[in-house]
């Protein structure tokens, strides 16, 4: 072979090796999280955990489950991935325990993942379009709300089968609350200003109560049995409102109107049922109504200043109240473009601790 050709090949090989060497310096951490962490041990009897649903960045399938042991404060990252070797999916919305299982609603993956509550081992999947929240009725029945439809799905938590559906007269069933034999269903529909009531025996809508705003999101009960309904969809100009309903008649006892553009999400009641917490979200820095707010159920006015203020370019996405201690857990998603942070405060807003979690911490579940 011509000497020049040999030189070409030789230099080519050298160049390829140099390129390969350069490539090897790349930080190839594989698909998924760069630092996945370790699987948690089986939870000893009597120890409590808080589970954090990190919903991930919409459209990226990087949701994760974090867990903190409330006795040792040991944090376990990517619990589902580390135990089961698979990703959760896209938009991890909520968690619910029913008997010995945890049910994980993965909204944009159209599924509910079921894991053992102690080992977190995978036990099954229930395919439901855009699941949001699960309401346990009893061991053989639970309701599942679903975005973009007008259906509440009825599942059997033991067999993991879909039993039936409840047709709600409005779209986007969201928050649900069980009171006696009645379930209050909030359809997050901008054309709807009603909360619907389903009977848990017949699984039919039996009643409806008008609230003071459109697009009901969640319903909670206070210490006196009054039902608090948060409504609103600010992006669609349905301003936020709180309505207090009489438990028997469903009459409006009191209502609170938030100012225009004040966006309010994820209300939560404390252990005694006398303090209502919620998140004021200001995505664009337009209203300044941004942070964790708290009001006494007997207050006649909405709180004007936050208990825990958010800073500029910051807003909170997750809120949980520890049912044992009343500690306030706040999820900061940091724009959903990086790992979020959970900060824990006393009920008076004094910070106790903070720790990094997955992307988009949006829901807390305290497992007893």
């Amino acid at each position, binding site marked *: 072979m*011509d000497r*020049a*050709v040999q030189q*070409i090949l030789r*230099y*080519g090989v050298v*160049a*390829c090796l140099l*390129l390969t060497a*350069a*490539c090897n*310096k*790349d*930080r*190839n*951490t*594989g*698909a*998924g*999280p*760069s*630092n996945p962490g370790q699987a948690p041990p089986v939870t000893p009897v009597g120890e409590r955990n808080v589970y954090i649903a990190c*919903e991930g*960045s*919409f459209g*990226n*399938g*990087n949701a994760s489950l974090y867990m903190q042991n409330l006795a040792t404060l040991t944090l376990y990252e990517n619990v589902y991935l580390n135990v089961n070797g*698979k990703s959760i*999916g*896209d938009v991890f919305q909520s968690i619910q325990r029913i008997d010995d299982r945890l049910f994980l609603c993965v909204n*944009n*993956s*159209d*599924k509910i993942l079921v894991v053992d509550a102690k080992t977190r081992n995978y036990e099954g999947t229930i*395919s439901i*379009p*855009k699941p949001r929240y699960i309401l346990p009725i009893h061991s053989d029945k639970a309701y599942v709300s679903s*975005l*973009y439809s007008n259906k509440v799905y009825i599942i059997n938590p033991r067999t993991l089968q879909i039993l039936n559906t409840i047709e709600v007269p409005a779209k986007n069933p969201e928050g649900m609350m069980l009171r006696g034999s009645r379930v209050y269903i909030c359809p997050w529909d901008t054309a709807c200003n009603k909360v619907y009531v389903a009977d848990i025996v017949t699984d039919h809508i039996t009643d409806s109560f008008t609230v003071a705003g459109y697009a009901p999101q969640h319903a909670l009960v206070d210490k006196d049995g009054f039902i608090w309904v948060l409504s609103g969809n600010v*992006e669609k100009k349905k301003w936020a409102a709180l309505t207090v309903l009489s438990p028997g008649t469903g009459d409006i006892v009191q209502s609170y109107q938030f100012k225009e553009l004040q966006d309010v999400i994820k209300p939560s009641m404390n252990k005694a049922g006398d303090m209502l917490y919620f998140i004021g979200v200001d*995505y*664009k*820095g337009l209203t300044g109504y941004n942070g964790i707010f708290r009001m006494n159920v007997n207050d006649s006015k909405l709180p004007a200043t936050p208990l825990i203020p958010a*800073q*500029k*370019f*910051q807003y909170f996405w997750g809120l949980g109240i520890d049912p044992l201690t009343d500690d306030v857990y706040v999820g*900061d998603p*940091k*724009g*959903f*473009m*990086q*790992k979020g*942070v959970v900060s824990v405060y006393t009920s008076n807003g004094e910070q106790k601790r903070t720790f*990094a979690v997955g*992307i*988009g911490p*949006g829901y807390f579940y305290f497992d007893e």
Partner: protein
Amino acid sequence: MKKIVGITALLTAMLFSFANAGAQVADTLKEVKVKARRAKVKVSNDERLNTYSPGQTVVTIDSTILEQYKFQTIANLLAQQVPVFVKSYGLNNVATLNFRGASAAQSQVYWNGIPIQNAALGVADVSLLPVELMNKVNVVYGSSSALWGSGNVGGALLIENDVPAFSDSVHFTQSASAVAGSFGHYRFGIKSALSEERFAFTVNLFGQSARNNFHYTDANDSSRRMTNAGLQSGVGLLQAAYKVNDRNTVTARAWYQQYYREIPPALFETVSLKNQRDETIRLMLDWKRTGVKTNTYIKTAYIRDYVWYRDTTVLVDSRNFTNQVYAEAGIDHRFNEHHKLLVFTPVHLSWIDRVTQGDRYTQNRYALAASYLFTGINEKLNLSVNGRGEVVNDLAFLLPGLNASYDVSNWLQLRANVQRSYRVPTLNELYYSPGGNPNLKPEKGWNEDAGYTVNIRRRWILQHSLSAYNRVIDDWILWLGGAIWTPHNIASVHSRGLETENKLQYKLKDVITIHLGINATYTMATTIASYLPGDGSIGKQIPYTPLYNGQGNIGVSWKRLYANYNHTYTGLRYITTDESFGIPSYTTGNLQLMYYIPVGGNRLQLTAQCNNLWNTQYQVVNARPMPGINWLVGLLFTFYK
């Protein structure tokens, strides 16, 4: 005497350039150019690139490469042949450009000098740009805002049609093509060209369909066949030119295309009912007057993009029309062999009509730009001083720039470039519903780069170039959010890196030409400051910017046969700003074959591509799987009269 030599050289170069398309026809690939750095010959029809960017790093795609990729998209071409990261959401799906760590909105695309990115998004989908329609493709690295306008922060892709080739006698060419590929891909096209002394006309039409139902491995490690991934499209480009006299030419172009694309499910989705229809019409009218010392031109264009996105699962039905009117008048004057001046006035009016919301938003840009070129020291030094004053709605700003090249010897050239970078927020960033932020400020900063080129021509040809760049952009716009995504001026981003291109070519016994090429980039683009409380992105690589990216080519041409093996490497891409989540690096192997058969006085061209030869399972964008090994075989018959 010098003047005569200069004019002769210029005319020779122009003739070479004009005749190039015709010459390719009868060419039997005696010479294989894998890729050539900008040489003295004109690589573009635009003087901004040919003359007034001597210090800018430019990659010109050779005509042989364009032939190889004739039946593919610009996205595929760039992904395999140019060290730029093409962010592709899947086979035949949206693909955008990432130059030197810049975002898609910071990378611009021009068709015959007209910006063609979607006026609302500020982004061009390069998967909708067919290679077949273009005669010249250049990639300009780094900011060149003074010449090309604000928004050109990371780099620019320039696609062009050849200037009209008039002929002394009536000349007619007709060609027909048929292409078949994996996953139910079929494509048929015709092209006609008619030219005579004063008139030239070409029409290029093709239609294609594909099922794209390739196998992939899902999140549960099961093999599945892709669903809802079909494509249908129809594309047409008409060009007509009239030579008024020896100095004046008028050219009209009309480019219409319609793409219907189903959007397949991501790995985390069980099903997808998404689809998108993209319909675009681009009309352009261009007058040029060529003088002895002064050339003048006026170009006008109207562009209308219609995007109809539907997802019945989540009840989304979004229809948007964006419109752009572009006009530019310019004068290019050569005072003598040392001094040249270009002055031009771009006017760019854009508006979006949102059918769903029933509203309209506008963005109007007016600019006055000038570029002065000094040539001296025995033509070794070329120094260009550029400046542009631009007004966008009620915002006015200046964009200065300076770039130069110096020929140290006949084989070594040095070059350097300094430019101000500036990008005004797009209509989408300002007014998208929900989430648009009308309070956004422009992104701004400075770009510097320098490098050298070695070009040695013996029996073998060695071309080597290395560029280093540095850029800091303040008020970088980042979309943040969960349920509602909102853009904010969050950060300052520092981008720096290296790019190298290398080509070795050897002729063996004047029959066989062997070529070897390696291109590589090193891109470090990190957040250096942020307004976000407790931001974990400081010092971390920005999303979808691979640290390393490169391609290698090795091939041979023998008589009428051309064969090339291409290998690409794309490094790890983080999808979060704090490097907490990444997609693994991948390599692909691709094979290209081309063969010409003379049929009487006509020609039959056979092409074959095998993409992803090693059947690599990979994703460019998170959770959007790419196809394994796939084929594309094409026949092109050209009839001459």
